[in-house]
Each structure stands twice: as structure tokens, then as C-alpha cells.
């Protein structure tokens, strides 16, 4: 399991964080997603053998958000 933090600049309300957290029920290999509207971040804990960063970004794109891996 690894943890990756993404910056999601297009979150516009607390509802967005809940939408993004809902991806944890959709994506195989995701253990947990914690999204924060205040910080505009999404932390994903997932199994790299089952899921890639690109797939996470694609899934978020599909529901209208554009996360970028956090450089920090």
C-alpha cells in the first residue's frame, strides 16, 4: 500500500470532497481516500499492484475533477 497526495484545485465546495471520497467505492485497490476542500487536496491510500496514479486521475476526471500529484 502507498499513500499519494494530489492537489485538486477545482474543488469548489465541501460536496466535492465527498464526491472524490466516493471513488474509494469505485476503484479496485483503493483502501482509503481522504479529500479536503479546505486544503484542496486528496490523499489516496492504494495498492500499486492493482491501480496506478494515472487511473486515479482518470477516475477523478470522469466525475469532473482534475487532480495533480502533489510535488511535496
Amino acid at each position, binding site marked *: 500500500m502507498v499513500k499519494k497526495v494530489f492537489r485538486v484545485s477545482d474543488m469548489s*465546495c*465541501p460536496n466535492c470532497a*465527498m464526491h472524490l*471520497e466516493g471513488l474509494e467505492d469505485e476503484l479496485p485497490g483503493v483502501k482509503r481516500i*481522504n*479529500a479536503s*476542500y479546505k486544503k484542496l487536496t486528496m490523499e489516496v491510500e492504494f495498492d500499486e499492484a492493482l491501480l496506478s496514479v494515472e487511473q486515479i486521475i482518470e477516475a477523478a476526471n470522469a466525475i469532473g475533477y482534475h487532480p495533480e500529484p502533489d510535488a511535496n
Partner: protein
Amino acid sequence: MDLIVAFVTGLTTGGLGCLAVQSGLLASTLAYQVEQDVLAHSADASRKFKPHIARPIFLFLLAKLIAYTILGFLLGAAGSVLQLTPLMSAILYLAIGIFMLGNGLRMLNVHPVFRYFVIEPPSFLTRYIRRKSKDGTSLVTPLFMGTLTIFLPCGVTQAMMAAALGTSSPVQGAALMFAFILGTSPLFFSVSYFATRLSAIVEKHFTRIVAVTMLVLALVSVDSGLNLIGSPVSFSRTFNSVVVAVSDSVNGVQSGFVINVTDDGYRPIVLHLPADTPVSIEWVTEDTQTCARSVVVPGLDYREILPPTGRVRFDIPAQEKGTVINYTCSMGMYPSQLVFDLDL
């Protein structure tokens, strides 16, 4: 806060504002159940009204209404135990005002710092609710989901909860939350019934309207707070001073020491009284039902709940010439003045 105001707030700002917090999670998960119902009753697809879709939404909203009414009752009871003084009520109203102001500015994207005005429910709670909502398709689920919304209050709802606390009455607190949540229900029902996609459109197009309405309500709340601490400066007091300046020029100085307490406030708005001598005034009510009955004179540490109809005497110690004492109702509405500027 007036029940009609609470209802209209729910119907407009509350309904739209709460959609942002609750619809995405709850209406969409409710739609999951609705989809199952639709699949199970595809033969009914041609019918205009679909009770199989309406029923779970109705149950969800009913549970939400009951849960929030109970919450309002408990908040009002907590307020009565705390026995909020006018100063505490004023601080509460000012805090509500600042909270709503911050949320309004956040929705207008004025500055990232305003995102900190949002109270986000903890992830474990939203996760639990989300997963629970997808368990089974029984009618118990929407009832349960509706009850759980008390853990996902939107900004306006949080402000209304604070107002329920400020009523210091279980019945008034319950009535306030009931009126507000009832007001939010039509929009919530429509959005859920006509497919959840609509909520995204509503959010997009109406966010600014919600933000502006919230800013107006914020100013009303701040105004109430200022009136309750007896501040000589407030928006409504400034407005009243203009009205009084015009009416005084027509009616001249008031001669009686009677204040008529009406549903719209106190008449006269400014009562001129003799200085340097104790005076008595009479509050006169006649089938008065608004918060004007609960009169607060912060400068004299006076608070009285008047009967709906009757006369109540108020003795005021001698005041120096030129003294101005502000008073209002316990909700900070109807700011009025006692001016001690008459010679005996």
C-alpha cells in the same frame, strides 16, 4: 427569528445551500435506490408520477424533518438551561453573522482563506453514511439516511441551529428548525425526483444567488447582534432614524409615556421623556405575537416578556438630559429609543 423568515430562508438559501452539502452524497445515493426501484418497476415507466421514486425521497425528507425538529427542541432546551443573557445572545448573533459572511464570501471565491469557514463532517462519518445508503433497498434506508443528515448540516443550517439555541425555548427551537427544514424540502425533493444531475446545474447557476442571499442574512444577523448590545450604530437603527426624522417633523414630539408593542415593533420608535426625574412608561400589547413581546433594554439591564394583550409598567430611574437608551426585542429586531430630552 420569525418562523416565516426561517421557512423562506429554507426555501431559498437553505434549500440551495444544503444541496451543495447533502444532495451530492445523499440524493445521489438515494438515486441509487431510486434506480433500483425504476428497474424493478419498469412497467410503470410510462406513468407521469412515479410513486416508487417519490416514496423513498418523501420518507427521507420526513425523517430529516423529524430529526431536525428534535434537534431544534434539544438546542432550544440547551439555550434555556444556559439562560442566554442579551449580551450572550448578541455574541451568538454576531458569530452567526460572521460565519454566514465568511461562507457567502467563500462561495463568491473572494479569497481562499474563507474556505476555513466551512465545517466539514469527518470522513469516517461521510464514509459510513455513503456505504450505508447503498445497503439494500428497503424503505428503512431512506428513513435512516434522512435522520443521519443532522450530521451533515450545511452552512445555513448550522447558522439556523445557532439561532435555535438562541431562542432559549425548546418549543421555539423545534418550531424554528421545523419551519426551516420544511422550507428546504421542496427543492430537495424536486432535485432528487427529477434526477440528481440537476443538482450540479442548480449548484453551478445558483451559487452566486445563494452567496448574495447569505451575505444579506449575515448583515441581518450582525444587525440583530448590534441592536442587542444596545449599539447606537446598526443598519436598522440608521434606517429608523431616517424614518423618525420624517415622522417627527409631521407629528411633533410624543406626549404620552406609552409604547404600543405591535407585531411590527414599537410605536413610537423614538419616545421623548422628561430628563432628571424618574418616569414610568407602559408597554401596551394588543394581540401581539412577534418577538416584539420580548423586550430587552440592555442599558437598564431590563428584560421582560409581555403578555399578548395587556399593559405592563416599566419604571425608569432619573436620567441625565440628553441620555439616549436603545432597546429592541430579544431577537435584536425592531431597534427603538428612549430619549431623555424633555424639561419638566
